[in-house]
């Protein structure tokens, strides 16, 4: 807690509560966090002060560029010059371009595989690592490495493993009599490759989220369930999964954002190719803005993408509310 902002915010929060004194505390207790009744004024004020630093940052770092991007998306200018107002022309251009829809489709698959692939791998490993294993802690640290290595480096390492017919993995395939697959040159294989790479980069995050959630699950619950004759699968679906449900939904949402917004993973491994086979919406937006110098349409793509993300997230978000109200 070395941040002055946070401290002053917290100090104010403390002061905000002070007039009520201990009485305020008990009032809070009666009404404050009770889900069914309205929040008391005191609690509301405390909540406000607790939120304030994040609100300020949100407006400054996230809100301002959003507005700026809104201006760019409705103008025909460059990065330097705003240009003339063109209304929704850029959006119309983008929506009528086949490249946009192709990229949208790829983004969808990339996200689905990225989210659930990394979740399944992360969940499996988190469950495995939760058991007693010799040197378990070491494995836990080692398995976080894919997330730690800078993408510039890991994409190069992956390239060396698969790019040319003489690379390690194509050689293994050849020696097994499976032909020599061109992992990055074949459009379908390249798409698969990018997704596998994404899962490889992302599963440690999932593993960590799930491990943290599992850590708060009390093991005696299993003991009781086992006494009641619950099978292991039942214990998994009826104890473990519900316990980590909210955490899972949140990690899905976060991973959806990470996948949809992911730029370096794709761009550094395939550059979006071959022939757009791995061009996601972000890559398309990037190339439109910085390579085709079409600032307006490029930013419009980013906007449409954000809009879709919001719709998807509202859906997942509802799931979270449900799961936490239970």
């Amino acid at each position, binding site marked *: 807690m070395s941040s002055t902002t946070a401290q002053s915010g917290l100090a104010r929060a403390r002061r905000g509560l002070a007039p009520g004194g201990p009485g305020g505390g*008990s009032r809070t207790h009666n009404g404050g966090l009770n889900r069914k009744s309205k929040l008391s004024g005191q609690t509301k004020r405390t909540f406000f002060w*607790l939120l304030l630093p994040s609100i300020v940052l949100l407006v400054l770092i996230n809100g301002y560029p959003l507005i700026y991007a809104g201006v760019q998306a409705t103008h025909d200018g460059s990065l330097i010059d705003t240009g003339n107002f063109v209304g929704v022309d850029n959006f119309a251009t983008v929506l009528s371009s086949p490249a946009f829809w192709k990229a949208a489709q790829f983004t969808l698959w990339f996200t689905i595989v990225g989210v659930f692939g990394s979740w399944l791998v992360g969940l499996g490993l988190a469950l495995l690592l939760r058991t*007693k294993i010799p040197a378990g802690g070491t*494995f836990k640290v080692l398995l976080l490495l894919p997330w*730690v290595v800078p993408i510039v480096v890991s994409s190069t390492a992956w390239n060396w493993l698969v790019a040319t017919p003489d690379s390690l993995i194509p050689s293994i395939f050849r020696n097994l009599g499976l032909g020599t697959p061109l992992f990055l040159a074949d459009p379908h294989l390249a798409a698969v490759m990018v997704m596998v790479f994404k899962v490889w980069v992302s599963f440690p995050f999932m593993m960590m989220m799930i491990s943290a959630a599992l850590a708060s699950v009390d093991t005696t619950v299993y003991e009781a369930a086992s006494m009641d004759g619950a099978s292991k699968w039942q214990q*998994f679906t009826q104890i473990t999964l519900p316990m980590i449900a909210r955490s899972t939904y949140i990690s899905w949402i976060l991973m959806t954002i990470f996948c949809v917004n992911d730029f370096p993973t794709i761009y550094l491994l395939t550059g979006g190719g071959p022939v757009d086979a791995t061009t996601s919406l972000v890559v398309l937006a990037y190339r439109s803005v910085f390579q085709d110098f079409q600032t307006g349409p490029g930013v419009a793509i980013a906007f449409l993408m954000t809009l879709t993300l919001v719709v998807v997230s509202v859906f997942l978000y509802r799931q979270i509310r449900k799961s936490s109200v239970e």
Partner: protein
Amino acid sequence: MSAVLHAHPESGPALGVAGPQKTRRTLSEAGLRGRWWRFVLILAITAIVLVPIMVTVILALTPGPNSTATGLTLENITGVFSKTLAGTWLTNSLITTLSTVVVSVAVAAPAGYVLSRGRSKAVSGYSLLLFVMQSLPIITSVVPLFILFAGMGLVDNLLGLIIIYVGSTMTVATWMMAAYFDSIPVSLEEASWIDGCSVFGSFTKVVLRNSLPGILSTAIFAFLLAWNDYLVAIVFLRSNEIFTLPVGVQSFFQQNLTDWSGVMALAVVMMLPPIIVFATLNKYFSVGGIGGSLAGR
């Protein structure tokens, strides 16, 4: 996959002890066998997963084209420290990242608490807003942020970078903290209110104190985001002596030419601090934050 899933309950220590129809002796043998089985399994998985990283490490230790050394050598790594400002970059990266982590958690923890406990429309609206605002990809934010920060002298300056990193980690960090706080039963706070604690008091004294795994996960997320970013840093930082490590790595990429042994050596340097962090904090992840107090849930 299913093998992995099944492996778990079989071995859960609590379950092992509770198995009613097995004798103590067979149990411990089965437990031991299962343990080694799982060891082999995780060893195999880890080995496969780490192949690309081993490639990196081996290249970092392989002598460069102009070297006389044979076998594996540390000269690439010592080389980047003696021939470039890698030491300074490392310090810059540490300053930037640690500041980001501390501020980000300090901002996200209280906000996450409100998101977790507040049930008003405003709170859930804000929670959604957090999401919406940060869904815009960072590549479209860099230029406006640069123009904004240039006016305040925050360009080519680690402070500017820290502010952006805090802003971009804060949204996700808030959600992560909220998710963790959700797993802490409200009954704990209720008990503290009865003892006369304020909402804020119970947040710091009861909730935060029991949230170490959540805080650590969030901190690690912020740490890695700040540690690995180059998309923002490369536009914001100009001077060699202000570079963070990822920008330093970029300086090995020349026109049509890349010094791979330098890149890989610096990559290994970049990997070490997160590994040290993970290894040091590892035991806290597995410690159940609130242990027995869950019984009342």
